[in-house]
């Protein structure tokens, strides 16, 4: 973590809470949680991320976690790729499917609307823009307007989070800690 305040600058109440998390999970607190709990009244994007990832949607939770992983990959954020591919794989009960999507979207065993949507989010993240033709391609693949809008909300959340993970240099936790985090995200979400 590049800023010491994110490691050790939390209020006393929050420090106690982080201590509880450490105790219950029996794992070190991952950097994403330290950021989420730092001056929540200023940044505190948990509610937005929760709505995008867990609110009512035609996309499954596993699909949206996969979108988060793909957006993180386009942002070159190792922490976020690891966290959300673990969560998506756990939801699907199929880690190989997630690994395949991250390795090669063209050949991954996923439905066409999802494939086209993941391509769109990757392009938006890498090139910082998309145009009407890109949208038409996704609609032609069978995704609805509502699905595209929901996917763009996931993209917004992770275009923010992955940038912060990189700028603040989040450390990748052990696979056990990442899996524990993934289970927590499926149980409780992002709030």
């Amino acid at each position: 973590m590049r800023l010491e305040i994110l490691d050790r600058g939390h209020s006393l109440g929050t420090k106690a809470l982080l201590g509880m998390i450490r105790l219950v999970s029996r794992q070190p607190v991952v950097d994403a949680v330290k950021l989420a709990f730092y001056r929540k009244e200023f940044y505190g994007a948990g509610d937005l991320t929760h709505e995008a990832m867990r609110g009512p949607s035609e996309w499954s939770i596993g699909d949206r976690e996969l979108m988060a992983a793909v957006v993180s990959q386009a942002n070159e954020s190792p922490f976020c790729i690891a966290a959300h591919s673990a969560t998506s794989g756990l939801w699907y009960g199929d880690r190989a499917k997630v690994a395949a999507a991250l390795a090669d979207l063209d050949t991954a065993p996923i439905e066409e609307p999802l494939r086209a949507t993941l391509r769109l989010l990757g392009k938006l993240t890498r090139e910082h823009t998309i145009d009407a033709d890109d949208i038409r391609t996704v609609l032609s693949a069978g995704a609805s307007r509502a699905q595209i809008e929901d996917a763009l909300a996931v993209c917004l959340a992770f275009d923010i989070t992955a940038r912060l993970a990189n700028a603040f240099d989040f450390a990748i936790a052990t696979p056990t800690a990442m899996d524990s985090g993934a289970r927590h995200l499926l149980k409780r979400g992002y709030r």
Partner: protein
Amino acid sequence: MTDISQLHRALVARVLDSDGKAPPVMRRAAFDNAGLSEPMRTLIEKVAYRASAVTDEDVAAVRSAGLSEDQIFEIVVCAAIGQADRQYKTALHALARVADEGQR
């Protein structure tokens, strides 16, 4: 479908307008990635366009220019939200254009 519109507006308003440690004008400049002087300019430009390229030195340089850790935290958060917000709006605009065509 999910509805983030209110939460999105509230987040942007909070980081730009709430009481913070960095002056509002600096937070706005970071959000817009425009009008900053060095060394803040380099750090914020990287956060916006290639956050994976941010280095310890980029952050140290901003610290040496007199910014506190909380001020650095705030401008980096503003930069990340600002660029993500521009991308999101561009995409929503493209989506609305295509949807309008379909209704004609």
